[in-house]
């Protein structure tokens, strides 16, 4: 009895040590996040103002705002999603609703996973070789959006697939039993139920796309444009590239440093907002579905 107690006490101590270690490390990770955020806020908050996000840069990028870069990033995000979202959702529908288990499905899945693992700099090389050079789009919104779209495609496919999988099979059986065709079932029954989760995936991939530098480096990004783009064959400025270039080039380092921190902060805020929106949305719809 005594011995048993000892063992169980030892167990308890072991458990307490292990658990507090895990707890500590988890909070440590969160602390890293806060250190990074705090660092950027501390350095960058000084330059944030309405002018910073609404004006053109002036004095050789050392004052004024980053308005064109923000607009450029928004255009690129929009353009890439215009491609990745419909294609990704349709691909996921095909995978989950249409094709039967077998080598085709396995193959497509494998390829999608492979694409997800391709490094972003390789996407940049590919985009430059295919869109910019081969198809002669030149450095343009079109080339950059397509490159980013391909990069985001696996993310959209994966999240949509998860969303479709989460739809209970009884819905499908009921609809098919009532004589609806497969597409009717998919479009009228499955998609509406899965919709909130699909949107969450979309928002998450927006966060991913807006921060990528390597794929746009050689496909679209420009250092300084006096005006906003007027067509899809124009180049744009973009936040991540802007941050990269003003933190590494420019002759007035102290001044452009400040601008760089401000740009980083704006970039983080965009990512933060889209992540928060995604989790909010998930929660909101999650509740609604349960209530029904």
């Amino acid at each position, binding site marked *: 009895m005594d011995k048993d107690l000892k063992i169980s006490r030892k167990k308890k101590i072991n458990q307490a040590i292990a658990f507090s270690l895990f707890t500590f490390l988890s909070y440590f990770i969160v602390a890293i996040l806060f250190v990074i955020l705090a660092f950027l806020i501390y350095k960058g908050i000084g330059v944030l103002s309405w002018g910073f996000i609404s004006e053109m840069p002036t004095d050789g*990028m050392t004052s004024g705002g980053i308005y064109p870069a923000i607009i450029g990033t928004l255009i690129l995000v929009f353009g890439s999603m215009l491609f990745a979202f419909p294609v990704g959702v349709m691909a996921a529908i095909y995978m989950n609703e249409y094709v039967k288990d077998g080598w085709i499905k396995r193959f497509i899945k494998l390829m999608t996973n492979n694409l997800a693992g391709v490094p972003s700099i390789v996407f940049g090389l590919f985009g430059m070789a295919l869109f910019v050079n081969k198809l002669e789009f030149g450095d343009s919104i079109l080339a950059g959006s397509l490159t980013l779209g391909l990069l985001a495609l696996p993310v959209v496919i994966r999240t949509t697939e998860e969303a479709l999988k989460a739809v209970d099979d009884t819905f499908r059986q009921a609809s098919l039993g009532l004589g609806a065709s497969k597409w009717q079932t998919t479009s009228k029954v499955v998609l509406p139920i899965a919709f909130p989760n699909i949107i969450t995936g979309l928002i998450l991939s927006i966060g991913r796309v807006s921060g990528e530098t390597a794929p746009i480096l050689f496909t679209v990004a420009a250092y300084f*444009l006096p005006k906003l783009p007027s067509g899809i064959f124009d180049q744009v400025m973009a936040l991540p590239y802007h941050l990269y270039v003003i933190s590494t080039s420019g002759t007035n380092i102290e001044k452009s440093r400040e601008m760089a921190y401000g740009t980083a902060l704006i970039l983080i805020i965009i990512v933060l907002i889209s992540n928060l929106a995604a989790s909010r949305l998930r929660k909101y719809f999650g509740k609604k579905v349960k209530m029904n």
Partner: protein
Amino acid sequence: MKKQLLVLMLPAFAMLSCGGSKEKTEKQAITIKGSDTVLPLAQMEAEKLMKQDSSITVSVIGGGTGVGITALLEGSTDIAMASRDLKTEEALKFSEAKKEIEKVLIAYDALSVIVHPGNKVSQLTREQIEKIYTGEIKNWKEVGGEDLKIVAYSRESSSGTYEYFKEEVLDDKNYATDVLSMPATGAIVQSVGQTKGAIGYVGLAYQTKSVKQLAVSYDEGKTFIAPSVAAAKDKTYPISRPLFFMYEKVNSEKVKSIIDYTLSEEGQKIVLEVGYVPLK
């Protein structure tokens, strides 16, 4: 669903249709592309020119000298900025394409050798710098400093600055493999400022308190010359390289405004402001 999709697609069509009318604009649109070293200068010149003459718009795009020259060859830019001369393979391509290229010298970029502000050494001969970068001298005490390992920083191997420094200062010898290369001059300044044994080279323009500039001797230690715009201008300071705007001869009418402006008194004043060395 379908309606939503359509709403999403509309702006894209709008964008497409705009693309076609791009050429019709009456405004003179000039594109400058290339060397990251010339970027800040070209951007400043463009900004000031546009302020004067609102009928001109100038876009400035980075990417590197190679990218700029390729773009010039393909006709996707009007002016290529270059921090080096054409390479033979590039010159060949232009002659194959039957394109005549005009090179305009716009400014000089003087390179200063910098060290950590706490470093006792304040001057080096060219030979010493060569030996440091080729790995023969590894400790500051060999050149009269403290007993401290030398950490040499350089620009990326592909940059014009890297090649110029190699040809001019290292007697065309290759850098030692353990020389650190940084993606940009700003990064070199940052690193040299926070590393005690560091040595680096940057454009004269990058004057900050966080690093110390060295005087350099090109006559085996007889005279040491501190880098300054004045010294670079009268050519007593030896390490300075030319910066170019290159354009196709048939295009000279179109690019005249920005070229003339850059070479004008006002434009050359900007050169000085940005931190490069004016021509006169």
